[in-house]
């Protein structure tokens, strides 16, 4: 194993302590993280068979007995590395609120209706080119207790594995033009504007389905392997 993932790529991430997002204050490290070389333990990662993703796992609109309420959308894109190469056969997990901004989670007390036909969880595996596709419902914004009248912009949670345990990524996909962006401390925890914009999907008119669904494209970029031998790192 001679490849490493440059740690410089991590600069795009938000700082772990972002006081405007209050929950980070007691949950972020107070001591410096310790740098180390990547060993086989970091450079490998879990591999899944096709049994992990079932035929309709990518279509969140068919998991109930009837159709869920809301605006049907296609969310698709590529999982890429930093050089733009597709990441094939990797697992993409998704979860989200329903069209009213309500999660099925037991502790979500937002007084908006649950949808008996919408759980909000999905799974897909990228193809040989790194492409994935979901069909779902556009999630609603919802209030949270971070500060007075705080509302999260509509978002879809994504969990992606990639080639190794250090390419693991959990993120949130946002929708273009959301008026809540300037007020959201989680979105704005990413201080670099270009990096922040990489979390915003783009409206994809070309891939909408006439009379059926709008479409958003969301490419997910994971840390890439460079060719630097470990000995020089």
């Amino acid at each position, binding site marked *: 194993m001679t490849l490493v993932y440059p740690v410089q790529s991590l600069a795009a991430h938000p700082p772990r302590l972002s006081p405007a997002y209050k929950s980070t*204050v007691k*949950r*972020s490290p107070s001591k410096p993280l310790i740098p180390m070389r990547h060993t086989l333990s970091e450079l490998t*990662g879990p*591999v899944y068979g096709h049994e992990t993703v079932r035929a309709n796992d990518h279509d969140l609109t068919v998991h109930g007995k009837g159709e869920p309420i809301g605006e049907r959308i296609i969310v698709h894109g590529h999982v890429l590395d930093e050089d733009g190469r597709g990441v094939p056969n990797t697992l993409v997990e998704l979860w989200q609120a329903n069209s009213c901004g309500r999660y099925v989670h037991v502790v979500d007390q937002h007084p908006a209706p649950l949808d008996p036909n919408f759980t909000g969880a999905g799974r897909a595996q990228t193809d040989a080119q790194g492409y994935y596709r979901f069909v779902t419902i556009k999630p609603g914004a919802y209030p949270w207790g971070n500060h007075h009248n705080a509302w999260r912009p509509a978002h879809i*949670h994504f969990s992606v594995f990639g*080639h190794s345990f250090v390419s*693991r990524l959990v993120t949130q996909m946002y929708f273009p033009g959301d008026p809540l962006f300037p007020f959201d401390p989680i979105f704005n925890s990413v201080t670099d504007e270009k990096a922040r914009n990489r979390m915003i999907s783009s409206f994809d008119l070309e891939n909408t389905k006439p009379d059926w669904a709008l479409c958003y494209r969301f490419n997910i970029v994971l840390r890439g392997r460079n060719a630097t031998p470990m000995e020089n790192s």
Partner: protein
Amino acid sequence: MPQTKPDGITPSQTVGPYFAYGLTPGGKYDWNDAFNNNLVTPDTSGERIRVEGTVFDGDGVPVPDCMLEIWQADAQGRFSDPQDKRALPNTSFKGFGRIGTDARGGYAFDTIKPGVVPDPDGKPQAPHIVLAVFARGMLLHNYSRIYFDGEAANAADPVLALVPAERRSTLIATRQPGSGNPVYRFDVHLQGDNETVFFDV
């Protein structure tokens, strides 16, 4: 495929408080588990162990909405990943586990004691499990390692050697008294005097 090289990676965002129904449903939600906290398969060779503990925040308060993921080699020190170019495992042991903490911040994994994995120079590392910690209030997950007490190899482990001596104990799971399969305790302190060592990887 996109035509242009990306201008950087997609930033991380918190897993939030509501991940359970998508990532760790555990029979409580109408969704199946892709992974769980039992890594042992019937054909897995090696010493069966349990690793359990509690996750605490900077005030010492248990964290009930935390997700832990582990990744490890099999008992022969091989990873279930073709990128491990050495002889591959011949069992169905996958080496990956995931769990959400319970209402008291607790967690447990049933797995096997991993074997020895070489470092980039070919020197042996002491048996260890790689840990990723996610939670509401964590914008980016933390990486740590679980080592095992009573392992002579810990003294020469090249990664433990990078850690200030007074903090090494935060990375070493302690064997609990009792009969049956060995149980190791590994608490995670996200912040504070007993803060678990996290690595910049």
